[in-house]
């Protein structure tokens, strides 16, 4: 099997063949989801806990549906409201949960690296659902699947990632994934919203939106957080939309068949014009959401196989060196 990881913490440590394996499986799940074929035996008897230390509606729902379609017992824990408020440390929370013997742990946390820390302390497969500004691997994988289905390939494409790259874990995971698959990645945005040292990532940097979009195959927009809009990083919402918001005029610089993507939730009229977002000929934003479920099913399926194999090996007394 060419997917060997025991956790899905980020794109950084995935090999291109692992990415392809996961996307191939996700593609099958996407088709089966459309015709309503369930696979309740895949995660049967396994417990999936969704721990979200940060608000999320769509990602949490997507992981929950993915787990349920594969037959897992899914539990959601809203961590903002829970023990964190009582002063429990992340590691204690992890150890407490670990004692309940879950099999799959889906974690979102506001601090970069927090999911890695947690993964060191538990005996189950951990999926990173977003940690600080670090990584959001399932988002990058669902974006990749969406691109592959729309463009027929996932290599030698020109892809512009536009907007608040500095604060975006989605952008980091996408830069790594698209780079590993040998695409040309451009970052487009005001310099205050691009991270330091980014030119060393093998990307091209543009501060002019029209130049940045010229002849690209894919336009990937990022969400601009409300709290960044007033004076700190950019002068105002309206100036940002004028210079960096995606509208029909700016999109005309991209290839005629370029697709428009957005991880959601969108700020219409801030980073993207409503008519572009709704243009069924250009926008694949709804497809991204659909692929999200398929990618998460594939990720949990592959991790569960590795988990079961490692546990089986342990039960049989075979040292595998793989986490159990």
């Amino acid at each position, binding site marked *: 099997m060419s997917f060997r990881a025991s956790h899905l913490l980020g794109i950084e440590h995935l090999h291109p063949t692992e990415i392809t394996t996961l996307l191939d499986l996700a593609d099958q799940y996407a088709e089966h989801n459309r015709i309503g074929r369930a696979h309740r035996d895949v995660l049967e008897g396994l417990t999936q806990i969704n721990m979200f230390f940060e608000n999320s509606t769509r990602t949490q729902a997507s992981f929950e549906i993915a787990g349920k379609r594969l037959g897992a017992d899914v539990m959601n824990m809203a961590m903002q409201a829970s023990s964190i408020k009582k002063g429990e*440390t992340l590691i204690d929370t992890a150890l407490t949960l670990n004692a309940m013997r879950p099999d799959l742990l889906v974690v979102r*946390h506001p601090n*970069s*690296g927090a999911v890695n820390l947690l993964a060191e302390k538990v005996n189950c497969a951990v999926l990173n659902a977003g940690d600080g500004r670090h990584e959001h691997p399932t988002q990058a994988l669902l974006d990749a699947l969406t691109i592959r289905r729309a463009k027929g390939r996932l290599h030698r494409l020109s892809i512009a990632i536009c907007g608040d790259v500095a604060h975006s874990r989605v952008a*980091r995971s996408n830069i790594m994934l698209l780079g590993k698959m040998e695409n040309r990645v451009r970052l487009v945005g005001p310099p205050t919203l691009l991270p*330091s040292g980014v030119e060393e990532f093998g990307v091209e940097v543009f501060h002019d939106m029209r130049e940045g979009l010229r002849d690209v195959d894919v336009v990937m927009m990022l969400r601009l957080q409300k709290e960044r809009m007033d004076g700190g990083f950019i002068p105002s919402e309206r100036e940002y939309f004028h210079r960096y918001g995606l509208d029909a005029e700016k999109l005309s610089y991209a290839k005629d068949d370029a697709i428009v993507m957005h991880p959601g939730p969108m700020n219409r009229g801030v980073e993207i014009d409503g008519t572009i977002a709704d243009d069924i000929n250009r926008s694949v934003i709804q497809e991204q959401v659909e692929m999200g479920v398929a990618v998460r099913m594939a990720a949990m399926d592959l991790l569960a196989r590795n988990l079961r194999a490692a546990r089986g090996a342990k039960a049989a007394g075979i040292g595998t060196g793989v986490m159990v």
Partner: protein
Amino acid sequence: MTTLRFENARLINPEAGTDTLGTLTVSGGVIAEEGAAPDEVIDCKGHCLAPGIVDIGVKVSEPGERHKESFASAGRAAVAGGITTLVTRPDTTPAIDTPETLEFVERRAAIDAAVNVLPMAALTKGRQGREMTEIGFLMDAGAIAFTDCDSVITDTKVLSRALTYAKSCGALVIGHVQEPGLSAGGAVTSGKFATLRGLSGVSPMAERMGIDRDIALLEMTGAAYHIDQITTARALPALERAKANGLDITAGVGIHHLTLNEMDVADYRTFFKLKPPLRAEEDRLAVVDAVASGLIDIICSMHTPQDEESKRLPFEEAASGAVALETLLPAALRLVHNGHLDLPTLFRALSLNPANRLGLPCGRLTPGAPADLVLFDPDASFKLDRFALKSKSKNTPFDGAILQGRVTATYVGGENMTVQMNDGPHDA
């Protein structure tokens, strides 16, 4: 009066810049002229005998957090590391900002610490950067220098007055050069690594801005000023110019910034979280060169004990700092083994320069100087186990590292504290 003679010693003399085999006589706790008949002869077996380390900027967590480090444990760690004088930081809880709190520290140190302890006091009350402390009274009570540690005084009027007043008292001020606005919230140095890990970065320019500002204030006030740590290449030209212009300025650097770089943080290893953060490799090499040339005067441990709880957190929430009393010398010897420094130059930065800066008679092998000495085997290698440290806190970035250089005995005032410590009680 006991007279000791160290024979067959490799004498590291930072004043003369020499490294020679010979003998050293100690009589009545001070280094003596050769010739007196010894009561005891110590065979150094060709190991190095150097002036004991004077470490400026050590955090002993008394008062306030004695569970992290006490004077007893810090003293044991210092003996194990060849440090004979601890110059302690006032960033305790509460801060050492009154003669009364200073006297508490001196009393605790006198009872418990196995080495010399010279406490520093805060420059402003509560290290808040608003009102200066009673610099005169604090000096009378024994404060060796004044510092707000890593809390930068942002109000330049407050700092200029404190510097002016300190100068009138003949006090040394120690500052942390960092533009606090630019460095706010940063956990690592900005750049590719910070972006890859999604961590908020501090621009290395913040240090250059801090040093530029403080040099302007020194031109205004003429105060005696020491920079606790210079960690970036771009801050060095400013230091060089300030020295050339005759300002009373010196600078130090912490051992970790000389031996580690930002990539060592790897997968969010919080024991490598320091303040200022670890820098790029080019910066590390630049500060090593600056130590070799003497532009940077002093190497210190920046010993900062933190308990497990404050480090076992997501990186950005974890506490900064590392323990280093016991690893200072072995880590610094890496620079010798790598050919960056020779031993007399190293001990100029570890012992002689800090002693001179503080006006202390130690830090040298000259007759009449206190017999504060370290005897060490520069080649003995060992693998560091952090749980074997004498410090109460075990937050060292060198856990599991192979270090070369081992202290065999530390003498304070001619007394072998290594022997005393091994025989004595091991209470907290």
